[in-house]
């Protein structure tokens, strides 16, 4: 099996879907000949033409809205925001038009919204956000967040095939840092199904995206304790059974994410555990997240805000000793 970076795996996924189905096309700013701000679409315009890899004007509402219209008319658009932060400029089309379309009219909207997200590289307050939780208050949208090259490709295939609008959170910090084996050809990673990144019996860390790797590193050798790491993979709809199965097994849970704390994905996971697995717990559910502040620019400030390996290690130690 070839080894690809996380970024190459996304590109491979896009290429496979476009080869497989000619109704699949990409739209976004600078994605054509330039290959995108991060080069995720590099080579696609050469293979599929500028029509199917459309360099749009700087117009987020039009990008999302055009994707909605093309989707209901039988195309399978994959739209890119250059940074997930900019989805705020196209928010209305997503939450009011795309999300509610099927409930109101029985009309499916099979589109993928690629959202390069996350910090760790001094991107500052407008190029580092993790806005995934915004969309959980707009029923009708699905949200995925792959953490490995294998899942990056497989979740892209599933997102494209799904008849709903799927927000694909791709973590920028993983783009070129992470390599892994990725199968040739098309395959799908099922939506709403967690992945156990490491088995363990004493404590569960629940994470997604880049924080899965922070969790693995923090708990690799934690005084010999058996720490399970659960990768959510899909943030909406959550795999509630997959989450609860691990909680029932270990009875202690740390929920970790890079996004800000209040009403984040972690809050939802904690509430789920409190409602459904209270009797199985052997300690309080703990959250490790960014605090409720914008992501600052300067490296020491950014490090102070984004969850670090030591923080996760400390939280796990404390909970293990509870």
């Amino acid at each position, binding site marked *: 099996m070839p080894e690809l970076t996380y970024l190459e795996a996304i590109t491979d996924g896009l290429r496979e879907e476009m080869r497989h189905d000619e109704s699949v*096309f990409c739209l976004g700013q600078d994605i054509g000949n330039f290959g995108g701000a991060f080069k995720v679409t590099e080579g696609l315009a050469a293979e599929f033409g500028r*029509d*199917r890899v459309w360099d*749009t*004007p700087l*117009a987020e*509402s*039009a990008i*999302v*809205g*055009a*994707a*909605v*219209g*093309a*989707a*209901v*008319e*039988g*195309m399978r*658009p994959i739209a890119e925001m250059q940074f997930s932060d900019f989805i705020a400029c196209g928010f*209305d*089309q997503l939450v*009011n*038009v795309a999300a*509610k*379309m*099927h*409930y*109101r*009219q*029985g*009309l*499916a*909207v*099979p589109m993928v919204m690629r959202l390069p997200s996350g910090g760790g590289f001094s991107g500052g307050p407008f190029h580092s956000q993790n806005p995934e939780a915004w969309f959980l208050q707009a*029923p*009708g949208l*699905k949200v995925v967040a792959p953490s490995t090259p294998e899942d990056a490709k497989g979740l892209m295939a599933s997102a494209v095939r799904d*008849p*709903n609008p799927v927000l694909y959170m791709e973590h920028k910090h993983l783009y070129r840092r992470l390599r892994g084996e990725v199968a040739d050809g098309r395959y799908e990673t099922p939506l709403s199904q967690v992945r156990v990144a490491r088995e363990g019996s004493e404590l569960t860390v629940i994470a997604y995206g880049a924080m899965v790797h922070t969790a693995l590193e923090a708990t690799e050798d934690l005084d010999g304790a058996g720490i399970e790491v659960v990768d959510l993979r899909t943030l909406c*709809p959550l795999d509630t059974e997959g989450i609860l199965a691990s909680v029932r097994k270990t009875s202690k849970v740390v929920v970790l994410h890079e996004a800000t704390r209040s009403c984040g994905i972690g809050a939802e996971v904690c509430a789920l555990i409190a409602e459904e697995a209270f009797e199985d717990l052997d300690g309080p559910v703990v959250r490790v997240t960014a605090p409720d502040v914008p992501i600052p620019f300067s490296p020491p400030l950014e490090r102070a805000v984004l969850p670090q390996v030591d923080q996760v290690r400390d939280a796990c130690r404390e909970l293990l000793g509870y």
Partner: protein
Amino acid sequence: MATPTARPAQLEPRERDTAAQLTVEDRRELLRYMLLMRATEERALGLYRQGKVPGSHYDGRGQEAVSVGSAFALSPRDRACILHRDLGAHLIRGVTPGRVLAQMMGRVGGVTNGRDGNMHFGDPGLGCVGMVSMLPDMAPVACGLALAFQMRREPRVAMTWFGDGSTANGQWHEAMNVAGVRRLPIVFILENNQYAYSTPNELEFAVDPVERAATYGFAGVKVDGNDVEAVFQAAAEACDRARVGGGPTLIQAETMRMHGHGAHDDMSYVPPELFEHWAARDPIETFEKRLGEEGLETESLHKAVAETLERETEWALACPMPDPATAAEGVFATEDPVLGDGHAPWSRWSGRAATDA
């Protein structure tokens, strides 16, 4: 630029080139659809006053010629994103008055089966994508429909309607610009009904929106929105242009909203003389008078429409309210979308699909 209160449409008399392509039966159909729209909305207002329509009631009184004239140009495989003042376009595409009334009453059998209310609907089975309250959100969506046609090299058109207020919103600019850049097969119908809720034109824009079309690189046409044949002619020309790769058209139809924004709005902000000016130019009365002068019989249409409404109202009132147990169903789709074809009553399309266009 004239002030809005003193702005009756100053329009050139139109030659009726395309109207000449309308058969006698087509012209009777234009009148019939306008009558059907008004009768359906009057019935809906009556049901609202009886307390059978929850929320408020919104209609397109006085704007019948805009929706009927424009939608009449569409072929079966064209697609439409219709505004809440344009019931006539829904009726032309094939939505029955009964389904409209059931929709307004929040019943099963309404186009959204109670999921959405009033004029917020579009029947996907008839090639329509329903509007949302945010305006003009359907303009970018219609660009996407047109984009699909263009990418597949299909001779089809997307048509979308919006009001004067919508031209002040950023999404309007984004849609116009994208449509111009890609030369999309799209027809934008701007219904200038003089007021965005209570706000007159002079507070919405400093430049007449039709003039902006040129700056986006495509044709802008102003028509008398109370002349159904003039609207039809402009729309038919725009559709023909779009079908052969000629790009978008912005049609600005000058008209007047003769009811409040909703049934709760008494229009106290409209000067009486402006209202009277437009009342004297009622689109149905003027068109019927024109047909009468040409010797066409129209009285039977009134009778037929009245009978239709009786039957359709009875049907709508027999529709049940939705089962509360179903409220959480259908958030996510399990099947791919299917937009069906709409009715296309213009004689040009009889027995033809859009592939022949």
